[in-house]
């Protein structure tokens, strides 16, 4: 950059433009190299997921596989009973996404539109709930789940995450709903609609895009959760994908292709979900940041 200043004299305009042209390519290459560095673990994963162990020890992690080796994937698939884990993860994440956004909407309706007394303190409490370390509630939750017969049940995890995720949803939706146009509400109530009717047929339809963002968030967050499922889901039959993958660690039979193929199929659902909803998501990240 410093070089640019020295050539700013009028006579050197052509030179300046030329140098500026070089400079921008240098910056682009630097940003590209950084992007490659960020991608490199993914590339390593892809290169070695379908490479035989002999090929790996002979040619190292950077070579292209000499044959399409699928034993690693099959090994992982069978050992973890992957379809079962996938189903568990999908059920838990989807139910949390739906129930969590519903709970967020109903609660935020009372706070943002009903303007109940003490709403600022309420939102603060929900925010703190979102910041708590899960270790500070896990042991009592574990005991409670045992007491009501929900030990090792996906429902215990679903109930817990519905509440934890909706802490963020209530915060977001309350601030969105507090700016909801009052004319719409008044018109509806003049038409004789009660509070429940207004929630269902006025507020809900106009909140659909935001609720969509919330559902995408809740789904991915719950999919990626680790600590609570690790503690609450104690047997093979109920575990989620991330737990299944990590439980194979330290296993002697976990060679490079098994590890990488396992990681690959475990991140695929989240990746597909991300690609489908990429636009919704970027909008949502922004919405969350601004307020």
């Amino acid at each position, binding site marked *: 950059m410093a070089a640019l200043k020295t050539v700013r004299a009028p006579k050197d305009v052509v030179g300046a433009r030329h140098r500026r042209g070089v400079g921008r390519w240098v910056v682009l290459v630097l*940003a590209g190299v950084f992007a490659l560095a960020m991608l490199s673990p993914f590339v390593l994963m892809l290169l070695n997921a379908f490479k035989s162990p002999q090929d790996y020890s002979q040619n190292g992690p950077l070579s292209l596989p000499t044959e399409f080796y699928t034993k690693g994937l099959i090994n992982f698939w069978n050992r973890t009973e992957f379809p079962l884990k996938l189903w568990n993860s999908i059920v838990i994440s989807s139910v949390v996404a739906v129930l969590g956004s519903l709970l967020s909407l109903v609660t935020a309706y009372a706070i943002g539109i009903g303007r109940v007394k003490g709403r600022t303190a309420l939102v603060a409490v929900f925010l703190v709930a979102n910041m708590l370390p*899960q270790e500070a509630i896990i042991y*009592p939750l574990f005991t409670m789940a045992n007491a009501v017969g929900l030990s090792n049940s996906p429902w215990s995890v679903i109930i817990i995450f519905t509440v934890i995720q909706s802490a963020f949803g209530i915060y977001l939706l309350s601030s969105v709903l507090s700016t909801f146009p009052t004319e719409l509400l008044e018109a509806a109530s003049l038409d004789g609609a009660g509070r429940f009717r207004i929630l269902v047929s006025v507020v809900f339809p106009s909140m659909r895009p935001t609720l969509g963002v919330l559902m995408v968030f809740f789904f991915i967050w719950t999919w990626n959760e680790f*600590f609570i499922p690790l503690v609450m889901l104690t047997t093979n039959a109920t575990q989620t994908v991330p737990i299944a993958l990590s439980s194979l660690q330290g296993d002697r039979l976990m060679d490079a292709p098994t590890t990488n193929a396992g*990681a690959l199929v475990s991140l695929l659902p989240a990746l597909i979900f991300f690609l489908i909803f990429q636009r919704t998501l970027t909008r949502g990240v922004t919405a969350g940041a601004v307020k």
Partner: protein
Amino acid sequence: MAATTRHRRATWVAYLPYLLPGLIAFGVVIGYPLATNVYYSLFRWKGGLAKMNWYGLGNYTDLLADDAFWVSFRNSLAMVVAMVVVPTLIGLVLAAVLFDYLGRRFGTRVAAVLRATYYLPQILPVAVAGVVWNWILNAQTGAINVILSSLGVVNPPDWLGNPALAMPSVMLVLIWVQIGYPVVIFMAALQRVDPELYEAAELDGADWINRFRAITLPQIKPETFVVTLTCTVAALKVFAPVYVLTRGGPEGSTLVPSYYSFLNFFDKSKVGYGAAVSTVLTVVIIVVAVVILSFQARSERRDREGR
């Protein structure tokens, strides 16, 4: 009009039923367990059906004399460096370069593709990231050491097994995971900035560094606070990467409070002690969050008065 006031008061009361499900759910899933956890921390208890022995504040005084406890919080500082300081600084520069430099010289498509690449680690489950990095950093069969060996390095380092190297290795993984978040938030923030501001500054001869200091930084201050707050809380809570990469080892060099409390709960069967650790962690997180929020409030006030 008195009638309107009465009407308004009546209105918010009528909305209370809609608050009820949320209040009950939070009471049952967060409030009651949190209080119970504090209660547990006053006992010596092996968990389950074992007898609970009243210990008062004993667990907390024991903590003060426990080296592992202090180590875990010192390691939290390293986590803050890896998950807040470094990603925020690099994220600031990357977002500004992508938005204000590359985006305008090569088009927004190029910037969008680069941004998506930086964001990619954020979407994969932390456990998956940990498992892959665990393999990459493995002393014998890991990608890095196999490459190093093929280059003739005789004794490649044991990245996760050497107490001096384990923490830097874990930090590297966390930086990699974290960087995309500030980049995306800051780039979204920069969209609010009037492009004419940049053009005018450029015409006035301000170079990129000057524009960064005078326009970019002040404009994205609110987002910087949001990123600092959310990432600091996440850094203090970090569990899964440590669990998957090192289990707090070797020799406690990567032990963090959340993992230490987990260890006491489910491994050492010292439930009261684990509850005390997690209670201290909760207090620390709330204090840190309040400090950051009050910094934000003060900075906003100063900005308003400055104008």
